[in-house]
């Protein structure tokens, strides 16, 4: 029996009169790759935004290893070891690739904010440590040769990789990927799949939203299907593919 790392209990979010997430109950297992799928507008990204603190739930509970995330701010949630990427890539475009990852790493710095601003000699050592480990992440994702280019100048596929590198710099135990393959070509999508396998092997729990079903079925241990903010099916990729409700939701009646 695998341990759960994240539980959503009766999670609900209303935007005005629209119920985006409707009494959602979901448990995510530690060490697994779980895909959250569903038609457009099903509320998948809202679920991500709720968990990472960008929107506040109307009702219900989000529990990460028994810590309630409900009213925590995004930076505090990140500090717990929850990383995330966005659907539309969000890199710090006029900073270098290396700096992007270094910023992602700053939480693991031993110096406080004032220390790292005003204590130059100590800081150099700490900065070098951060720089070195950021460099390692870049090597892992094959971005090291772009280290000193401005992040905005990279092609989309590499920007996505960079966003993941930045999230990994946080040393997360839980990583959310919002449509990691969107806008990528076939070759880049394959590389993304391999990368997600690699992340899983680093003992990081991955939860992703993705429309590329081939990729989803290939990399996921479990799949949860939501429609109109409700959970309509979950299970292994095989089980879900055969579920009549899922076929219905995707193909219509």
């Amino acid at each position, binding site marked *: 029996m695998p341990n759960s790392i994240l539980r959503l209990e009766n999670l609900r979010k209303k935007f005005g009169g629209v119920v985006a997430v409707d009494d959602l109950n979901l448990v995510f297992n530690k060490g697994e790759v779980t895909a959250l799928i569903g038609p457009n507008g099903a509320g998948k990204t809202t679920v991500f935004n709720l968990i990472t603190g960008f929107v506040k739930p109307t009702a219900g509970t989000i529990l990460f290893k028994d810590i309630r995330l409900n009213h925590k701010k995004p*930076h505090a949630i990140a500090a717990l070891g929850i990383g995330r990427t966005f659907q539309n890539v969000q890199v*710090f475009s006029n900073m270098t690739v290396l700096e992007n990852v270094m910023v*992602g790493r*700053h939480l693991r710095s031993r110096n406080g904010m004032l220390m790292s601003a005003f204590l130059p000699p100590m800081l150099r050592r700490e900065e070098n440590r951060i720089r070195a480990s950021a460099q390692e992440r870049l090597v892992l994702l094959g971005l090291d040769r772009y280290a000193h280019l401005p992040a905005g100048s990279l092609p989309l596929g590499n920007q996505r990789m960079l966003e993941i590198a930045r999230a990994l710099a946080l040393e997360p135990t839980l990583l959310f990927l919002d449509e990691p393959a969107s806008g990528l070509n076939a070759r880049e999508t394959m590389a993304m799949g391999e990368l997600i396998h690699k992340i899983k092997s680093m003992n990081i729990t991955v939860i992703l939203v993705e429309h590329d079903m081939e990729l989803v079925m290939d990399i996921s241990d479990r799949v949860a299907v939501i429609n109109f903010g409700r959970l309509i099916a979950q299970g292994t990729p095989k089980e879900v593919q055969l579920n009549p409700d899922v076929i219905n939701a995707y193909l219509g009646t």
Partner: protein
Amino acid sequence: MTSSSFSDILQFFFMGLQRGCIYALAAMGFNMIYNATGIINFAQGEFVVLGGLMMVTLTMAVKLPIPLAFLSTTVFVTLVGIAMERFTINPVKHPTVLRLIIITIAVSIIIKGLAMCFWGKNSHFMRHFSSTETLDFYGATILPQTLWIIGILLLIVAGYIYFFNYTMTGKCMRACAINRDAARLAGINDRKMVMLSFALSAGIGAIAGIIITPIIQMDYARGALLGIKGFGAAVLGGLGNSMGAIIAGVFIGILEALAAGYISSHYMDAIALIILMLVLFVRPSGIFGSSEAMRLKEF
């Protein structure tokens, strides 16, 4: 061109340079807060005034040595900046750009009122950092204080470059300015960065006030005009672009001095405002700004 007219130009140039440095520093202050919050802090000029007046008290009344007074004044105004952020900006429930700007106007009025209570309505003299004996330079004269001003501006620029490019805190501030959401996701406490931006811009404002006071004599009401000129420099340099702001600040200062010399000193204060309007009419993103930095349109 005769040698006397050359030395005239040189003289106006130096006069402009010393004022321009102050506008540049005020503009840097505007930019820091703008980058962190998207607002224009109308109390920026008040930071400059507070710096000047506090320095006058500490050197002329308390008779502290200048380096010590310089440091204490900077720390004091920095704390005022932090207090302003903590008590008037941070508690706002739904911070919209317009609301925050109106708050900064309120704070500027309050600071101005308090400064009047403490320091009165008179102009205050302060002694120069070193001697007041002018130095000759190709027929023009320079006050040693002008050299102090230029030197301190250069030091601040160097510190600024170091901070934003070589320290993690500086990088995090830049990240926050470029993409707030992604920065929060990387674990950056954006509210803390806002506080830090107020602290830094108050500190820089204080230094501007400290170094200019021996030359212009500070009074409680100078903040608005200094602020507007600094704002003009910030807009001309491209809002949010501090290197642009420094060049623009110095440029406005020199233009002002030339206008005072060759047209009439009555028009001197109008120059910065005319430039401000021209830039807003013709190229709102400023000379060094990109259209991306056009978030000014928010209000």
